[in-house]
């Protein structure tokens, strides 16, 4: 079922005419097994067997019959569902006696004036076509129903003239396509590659010594009809194309002279085989092979199927479409997953190689480190030593610094130190406070006074300056500053004091700081 969903275009092609039927199998754009079917019950049985053999393949039917009707109509230009609704309504009015009918939209017109008029009025031309007597297809449709086979479509034979004109590049101008059928002479009139009308003229060959004379008479009658309908100007020659798969119509050229208003051409067997890529054996099997080959390309809007048949076909294609999407999705996912798993396997292999390399290196390292008690013991010792060294940077002995400061102050004399504060060097202190990081915490702070003081501030200041100078010498690289002088001699300060009643003191403070980087 899933595999069949991929063969979307495969179908059984059935050609029906009053004289008989033939079928072909269409697979991947190629015709296979073209066979004529016997008449009546025998043919139906054979068709039934064919459906049993090729179950689930849709069937497309081409009908060549005189029971056909063609009507030109002009309708407003609408789109989508509105167009479908409008054409259905019009078809019911025009071809009310048959359920098999279709509206073929005519896109191109040979008359530019009419084309412009229609464009201006927002109108479009349609060819309404129908099968007026469905008896020719009914037995075959019954067999399809019994076999639950589904119908791809029903086309009148002239609808196949459209793909034929395309393949032979006959899309320009007016053209009368003439073909010899089992039921008579088929005359199909096309304008700009669009079907205008067609008729199957039964020819009684017994009336003429040369049967081609009867054909010529029918062609002339058709020309007169075209002139009468003003589809063809009286002065204009009618391009007449003889479809001649059996090369039997060559003499017809002589019967359709230019002087009589014809421009006669032939499409011979060789051209048909080459252009349609038709194997000669198939055409030899049945001349219907030509039409069966064109049937898959018939325009969908010329499909005569009833509304119910369209519904069933749509349902069938939806089913196949859903199955196709499911299968395609699963296949895609499986393919991607397979690639992912292959890549995973590759990465896994590389990871195993890396692990093996690690293992080998570890063993080599263990061998080398055996004398040191193993890598972990060595790492542990290294960690201990590193921690020890990190503490070394914090070693500091303020007591020794205090002794140095006191020795210097004693040498200067009259300097009495009250208090000494010492702390770790700021840049080595584990304390990460902003104040400490900025180098503001002093290395040593000392506070003292001049004793005895004789009210000589100038001398006191000189002593302090001497102390600062000697400290600077003793602590090179440090910043020594006085934070409090015995007398604040700054010009910006206000001073007040008294001599006589109380003891005047000369206190000072000095800070030794780490040099600011």
């Amino acid at each position, binding site marked *: 079922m899933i595999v069949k969903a991929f063969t979307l275009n495969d179908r059984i092609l059935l050609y029906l005419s009053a004289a008989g039927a033939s079928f072909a199998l269409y697979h991947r754009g190629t015709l296979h097994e073209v066979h004529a079917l016997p008449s009546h019950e025998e043919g139906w049985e054979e068709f039934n067997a064919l459906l049993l053999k090729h179950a689930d393949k849709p069937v497309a039917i081409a009908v060549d019959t005189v029971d056909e009707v063609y009507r030109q109509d002009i309708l407003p230009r609408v789109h989508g569902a509105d167009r479908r609704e409008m054409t259905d309504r019009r078809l019911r009015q025009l071809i009310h006696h048959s359920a098999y009918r279709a509206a073929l939209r005519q896109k191109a017109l040979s008359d530019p004036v009419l084309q412009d008029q229609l464009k201006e009025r927002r109108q479009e031309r349609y060819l309404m076509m129908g099968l007026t007597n469905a008896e020719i297809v009914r037995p075959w449709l019954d067999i399809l129903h019994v076999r639950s086979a589904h119908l791809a479509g029903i086309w009148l034979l002239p609808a196949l003239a459209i793909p034929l004109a395309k393949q032979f590049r006959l899309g320009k101008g007016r053209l009368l396509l003439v073909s010899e059928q089992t039921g008579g002479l088929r005359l199909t009139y096309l304008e700009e590659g669009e079907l205008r009308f067609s008729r199957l003229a039964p020819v009684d060959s017994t009336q003429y010594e040369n049967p081609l004379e009867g054909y010529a008479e029918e062609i002339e009658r058709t020309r007169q009809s075209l002139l009468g309908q003003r589809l063809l100007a009286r002065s204009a020659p009618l391009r007449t194309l003889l479809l001649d798969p059996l090369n039997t119509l060559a003499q017809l050229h002589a019967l359709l002279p230019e002087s009589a208003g014809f421009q006669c051409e032939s499409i011979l067997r060789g051209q048909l085989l080459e252009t349609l890529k038709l194997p000669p054996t198939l055409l030899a099997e049945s001349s219907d092979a030509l039409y069966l080959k064109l049937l898959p390309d018939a325009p969908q809007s010329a499909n005569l199927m009833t509304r119910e048949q369209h*519904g069933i076909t*749509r*349902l069938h294609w*939806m*089913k196949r479409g*859903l199955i196709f999407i*499911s299968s395609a*999705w*699963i296949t*895609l*996912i*499986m393919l*991607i*997953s397979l690639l*992912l*798993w292959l*890549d995973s396997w590759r*990465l*896994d292999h590389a*990871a195993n190689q*890396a*692990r093996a*390399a*690690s293992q080998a*290196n570890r063993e080599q*390292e263990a061998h*080398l*480190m055996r004398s040191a008690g193993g*890598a972990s013991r*060595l790492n*542990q*010792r*290294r*960690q*201990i*030593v590193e*921690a*020890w060294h990190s*503490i070394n940077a*914090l070693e*500091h*002995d303020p*007591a*020794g610094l*205090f*002794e140095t400061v*006191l*020795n210097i102050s*004693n040498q200067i004399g009259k*300097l*009495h130190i009250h*208090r*000494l*504060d*010492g*702390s*770790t060097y700021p840049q080595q202190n*584990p*304390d990460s406070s902003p104040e400490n990081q900025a180098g503001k915490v002093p290395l040593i702070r000392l506070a*003292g006074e001049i004793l005895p003081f004789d009210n000589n501030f100038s001398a006191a200041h000189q002593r302090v300056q001497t102390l600062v100078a000697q400290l600077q010498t003793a602590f090179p690289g440090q910043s020594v500053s006085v934070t409090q002088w015995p007398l604040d001699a700054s010009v910006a300060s206000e001073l007040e004091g008294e001599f006589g009643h109380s003891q005047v003191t000369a206190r000072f403070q000095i800070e030794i700081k780490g040099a600011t980087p």
Partner: protein
Amino acid sequence: MKIMDPKLHRPIALLIASLLIGSLVFHYSLQARLATAARLISEESIAAEVARSVHEAPARLMQDQAESTLHKRIRNSGFIGAEDRAGWITALGEARTLLNLNSLTWHLAPQTSSPLAPNLKLSKMSFSATPLNPASLSRLIAHLRATAPGRFTIESCSLILEGEGTSLGKSGQATCHLNWWTLTPNAN
């Protein structure tokens, strides 16, 4: 035609099932691929580290030999292992007796982790002693270094000197803040 014709039930169910199964399979495959890629990155990183370690092994061995004396000293200093608070306080008490101090008060804070090195622990201690001058303070600290089991650094010291005469001969109250360091190496 109805949108949900019963004849479409099975194909729709098949579609939904294929979408679900496909998504799950894809998700599982992608996860497996990502997990393998992550494992490869990890293994390659380990391999590079081990290779570097092997390459550096001779140098590390030489360094270890060079540091063996220091390591022995560190091991004997009481720096490694649990804190010996009793030993520290005992050393303080001995210093008081040795220096004939009138008083020696101390305070020891709870142990904390230090950011300086992995597994490094820190305990802050402060003590005040009197009478002390710079020389006797130096002796006190030297005594602690010599006898206390463990390692400490001095964070700060203050010395308030009292009395008349030259500063060098005076004594007073000393307050010091010490950091006691201990290292608890990894079990392996």
